[in-house]
């Protein structure tokens, strides 16, 4: 029972990080219709800036710097590349982000060389013992940060003008434009949020507790799990991203504990395939209808 509780808490902590990644991913998709394959490279970008500055500036400042860089990087990609082709088809834009991802990832990995620097000094590798149960501090903090950010996002999404504009645009781009909603601004803001969330996620990803490995190509691969998380929830559903993140985190933790560590990576994708076969647009996604 104790193991089970421990696994559930760890799974939810991981799920919170995946939810942040998936949420950013979904926001970008909703606002601009782009399946952002470059999300993993935003993660690396934020992480890279943070690890390079953490010795001089301390963890907090470097973390803020990393998060800000990831957000600005995303903004740059949107303004300079994606916004140039507003009418391009979704597959073309997805491929465009693959190009961005390849360049950014290769360059950061090259700069890192053989180093695998860790992030999260204040909380990493300091487990808390409660009775027989060991909790990882990273997962607990991730859970808390995730909960706060997600709440903030949903409040903004429901209550602010930007949130209303964003929802209107996701509902119907043309109608939103005719109502005077400035598409460029809404989209740009969405990319910034996506980048910022990716920058926050990496603070937990590149730790001993989470992945056991520092910032590397592996971090990029873990960030890819945002895909199944977003797909399980439905690519255009923000609530779905949270549920998807939690499902992915729990699936990974439970299968690693009760089946095998190797299987845990596949398990996530098996769950995703199962969901897709039953509901091709994810659990909460809008179904595509074809009218003749």
């Amino acid at each position, binding site marked *: 029972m104790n193991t089970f509780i421990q696994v559930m808490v760890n799974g939810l902590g991981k799920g919170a990080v995946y939810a942040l990644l998936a949420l950013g991913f979904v926001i970008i998709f909703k606002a601009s219709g782009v399946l952002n394959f470059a999300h993993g490279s935003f993660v690396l970008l934020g992480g890279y800036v943070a690890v390079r500055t953490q010795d001089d500036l301390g963890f907090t400042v470097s973390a803020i710097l990393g998060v800000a860089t990831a957000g600005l990087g995303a903004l740059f990609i949107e303004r300079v590349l994606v916004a140039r082709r507003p009418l391009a088809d979704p597959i073309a834009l997805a491929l465009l982000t693959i190009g961005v991802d390849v360049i950014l990832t290769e360059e950061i990995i090259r700069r890192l060389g053989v180093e695998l620097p860790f992030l999260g000094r204040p909380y990493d590798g300091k487990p808390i013992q409660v009775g027989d149960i060991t909790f990882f501090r990273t997962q607990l903090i991730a859970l808390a940060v995730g909960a706060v950010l997600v709440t903030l996002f949903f409040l903004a999404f429901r209550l602010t003008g930007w949130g209303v504009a964003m929802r209107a645009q996701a509902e119907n781009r043309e109608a939103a434009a005719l109502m005077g909603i400035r598409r460029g601004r809404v989209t740009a803001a969405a990319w910034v949020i996506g980048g910022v969330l990716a920058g926050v996620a990496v603070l937990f990803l590149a730790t001993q507790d989470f992945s056991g490995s520092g910032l590397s190509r592996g971090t990029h691969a873990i960030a890819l799990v945002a895909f199944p998380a977003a797909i399980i929830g439905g690519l255009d559903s923000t609530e779905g991203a949270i549920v998807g993140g939690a499902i992915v985190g729990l699936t990974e933790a439970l299968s690693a504990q009760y089946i095998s560590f*190797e299987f845990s990576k596949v398990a996530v994708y098996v769950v995703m395939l199962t969901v897709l076969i039953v509901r091709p647009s994810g659990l909460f996604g809008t179904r595509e209808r074809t009218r003749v």
Partner: protein
Amino acid sequence: MSEGTLTADPPAETPSHGRRGGLLSNPATLFRWGVRLVIALIVLTPPLYFEPSWLRVGQYVMIGAVAAIGLTLLTGQAGQLSLAHPFFMFVGGATYCVLGSEDAPGKVGFGLPSLVALIGAILVAAALGLAFAPVSGRVRGVYLGVATLALVYVGLYLGQQWTSLSGGTASGRPSPDLNLFGIKTLRNDPEISFLGQAMEREQRVWYLFALLLLIAALLAWGAVRSRPGRAWRAVRDNESAASALGVNVPRVRAEVFAISSGYAGLAGVMTVMWYRLLKPDESEFAGTYSIVVAIAFLAMILIGGLGSVGGAIAGSVLVFGLPGMLTIMIGGNELFGTSGANAITPAIFTSFVYGAAIIIVVLFEPGGLAALGRRLKATAARTQLGSTLLSPKGS
């Protein structure tokens, strides 16, 4: 087609009913055969003059070309985004080893003739592609792209776990030698020489791969220009309209996925022969059958022009050829004065090049190299000489 659709479809060709004159009587026909002759020379002569290291680069390009042709049919012609190609390559390679090797301790083998193993590998890969139909038939667009990503992880896991088939990540298992009607490919048996050049392993593999690529390309061209190709494009452009025209949409979607997987299976066999080893990957993000390779294939077909068979081959020359060529030319692994762990290696440099090429193609030339080539051809056709040489058949 909507603005921004990425395809390299040629304009519909009008069937020509012109006279079939003698070969020499028509400059356009003569020119076309001249071009074919040049291509044939480019393919056939390198084994006579080039170092084995260059030949290996060329062989690798041909592997990429076969896989990219399969992917361009699926993604370019039929509009299904797939990242699963490395998985089907792995399946093809593993099947070839299992069918073609003798039974050994810890490694299952059926000891079938290698040619049967080759065909079996293609069929098994295609059958697995067909088995994916419940997903590929229901899931659309970008969702399908991510769904296919799952197969890469499945392949990674099975390759690591099912060591009696895959040989395991530690040592792998050796590739069976392809015995083509008495001529062995990976050994000098029987010894052959051609125009004074001994046909050793690299020369043999080159010619074998060239033959396989030729068959693969001809079949793809044939399919694209006839009924299956029209059905694929109809399904891609508008499923409802396609089905109103009598195209069985689920069936066509499943078929093209299977065909594409068969191409990947063949590329997998070629990969195993090239390495002379089947070795499952240790991680999903670096290796012969990893996500990186899936993205490299997408880069090839996008740079070449989605749906274009010739473009897929050109894309492979860039993406799979450039690292090897650079390594040989600079005689090392360090470009631009960088060195050590942070060196810009030819592989990294190639990633920069094709990453940038993807972005440029999407932003400025959605038809890729194929569209560029067609535009050059159109420009040339406006000149006096060009219009004579490039005129349609028999006119």
